[in-house]
């Protein structure tokens, strides 16, 4: 039962027609827009929306999966620390993401102690229940980083520390907007991240790059309506920020959460898988919180892991290009063959927000382009358009 009922079928059909009309009016093809949120990709795939997109509209998933964009050096730090015997708590998907010499799950098989949590608050509870050191391997975008900030400000127990791999989305949009191969003409921004940051944060970006940004919710109708508005802005050459999710997003955002975020974290440049170096894209603990920073509390030596050359399979993985928006899972020769959810080769097949995992579950996209249907995924089957 992948295709759910639309709340209002007539409205969905009308939005589909408006999207086709606006795309046609742009006057050139294809029109490429990007979203940066795994939950958007889930909704697009689950509700079969791509089948209703006009043929000349490319809706690309960019670097919107926090698990996927966490690059080898940060995974390696967590694995190296875990192998020294320190207990690591982290969000579930992170456990299986491959590092240079393996994942946290591989470390666990060698005796390391890894705890899966749904919330940083649960990691703090673990620390309260023991005298052992608990390191929270913190991943996720600003929506999730604010929760890490809150527990730090609330005063966690002394045996709790944070290994931050948190990432900040606005800076990576600057990088992707300038990538020559990607040619994105507008962005769909993630509604719940913008609940924290506010949609005003995109105004300087729009001014600098001349590209529109539309904030979108997660319902099929929210996404369709936001895409119509975005393509209209592309058509009208109107670089603006439009908030199509006002029931959750304001211009200024959640100021209380932002204050806590920036009291605890500072942005630094760092690598994102597939995107290379992103200035200000990584969040690290400020010096004030050095006592809670696992990087300062422990000597983390990853050099022993570098002796492992990546396997032949890993070298064929194109996750990086998929996250940069220049390839789709269907372009990957491993997808659905050597790389499946039970034994993922790349990060995009691990996370529930990864493009490959989503396409594998929901049957990918029933796109009309012949080139992309030739390696159609096997699981799930194509979903038909409910419009």
């Amino acid at each position, binding site marked *: 039962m992948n295709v759910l009922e639309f709340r209002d079928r007539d409205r969905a059909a009308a939005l589909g027609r408006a999207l086709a009309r606006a795309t046609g009016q742009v006057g050139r093809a294809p029109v490429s827009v990007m979203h940066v*949120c795994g*939950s958007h990709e*889930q909704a697009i795939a*689950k509700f079969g929306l791509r089948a209703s997109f006009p043929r000349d509209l490319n809706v690309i998933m960019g670097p919107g999966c926090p698990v996927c964009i966490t690059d080898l050096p940060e995974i390696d730090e967590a694995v190296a620390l875990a192998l020294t015997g320190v207990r690591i708590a982290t969000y579930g998907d992170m456990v299986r993401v491959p590092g240079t010499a393996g994942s946290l799950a591989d470390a666990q098989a060698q005796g390391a102690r890894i705890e899966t949590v749904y919330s940083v608050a649960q990691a703090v509870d673990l620390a309260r229940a023991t005298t052992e050191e608990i390191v929270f391997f913190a991943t996720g975008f600003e929506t999730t980083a604010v929760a890490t900030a809150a527990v730090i400000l*609330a005063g966690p127990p002394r045996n709790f520390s944070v290994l931050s791999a948190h990432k900040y989305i606005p800076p990576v949009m600057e990088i992707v907007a300038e990538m020559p191969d990607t040619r994105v003409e507008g962005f769909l921004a*993630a509604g719940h991240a913008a609940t924290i940051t506010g949609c005003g944060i995109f105004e300087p970006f729009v001014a600098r790059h001349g590209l529109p940004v539309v904030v979108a919710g997660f319902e099929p109708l929210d996404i369709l309506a936001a895409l119509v508005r975005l393509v209209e802005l592309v058509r009208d050459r109107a670089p603006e920020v439009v908030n199509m999710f006002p029931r959750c997003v304001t211009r200024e955002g959640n100021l209380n*959460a932002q204050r*806590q975020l920036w009291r605890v974290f500072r942005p630094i440049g760092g690598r994102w898988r597939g995107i290379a170096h992103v200035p200000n894209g990584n969040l690290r603990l400020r010096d004030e919180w050095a006592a809670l920073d696992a990087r300062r509390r422990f000597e983390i030596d990853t050099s022993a892991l570098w002796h492992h050359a990546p396997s032949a399979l890993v070298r064929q993985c194109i996750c990086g290009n998929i996250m940069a928006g220049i390839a789709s899972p269907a372009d990957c020769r491993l997808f659905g063959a050597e790389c499946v959810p039970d034994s993922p080769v790349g990060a995009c097949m691990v996370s529930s927000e990864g493009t490959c995992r989503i396409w594998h*579950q929901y049957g990918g996209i029933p796109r009309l382009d012949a080139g992309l249907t030739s390696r159609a995924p096997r699981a799930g089957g194509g979903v038909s358009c409910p419009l």
Partner: protein
Amino acid sequence: MCLGVPGLVTDIDDLVAVVDFWGVKRRVRLDLVDEPVSVGDYVLNHVGFAIRRIPPEDLQTTLEMYEQLLHEANRSDLMSADVRGEIEAGSK
């Protein structure tokens, strides 16, 4: 990890609220929400923290998609699994 989940506040003790998610009660922290929250309010929760009080007039629209997702028959469905994970993020 980006899709929050709405729930009904049934009790509040300082910065911790008891939130009812379709019959499942979990403790959720209120440190991050930016306006006063009272019993009877709906809040949007992410990784165990309320990040927004949902305006009552927007409630029905917000709840509908989640109700569909929680009725999803396929337990391995990614989107409904993420929503269940968000509910599990509250403390018992």
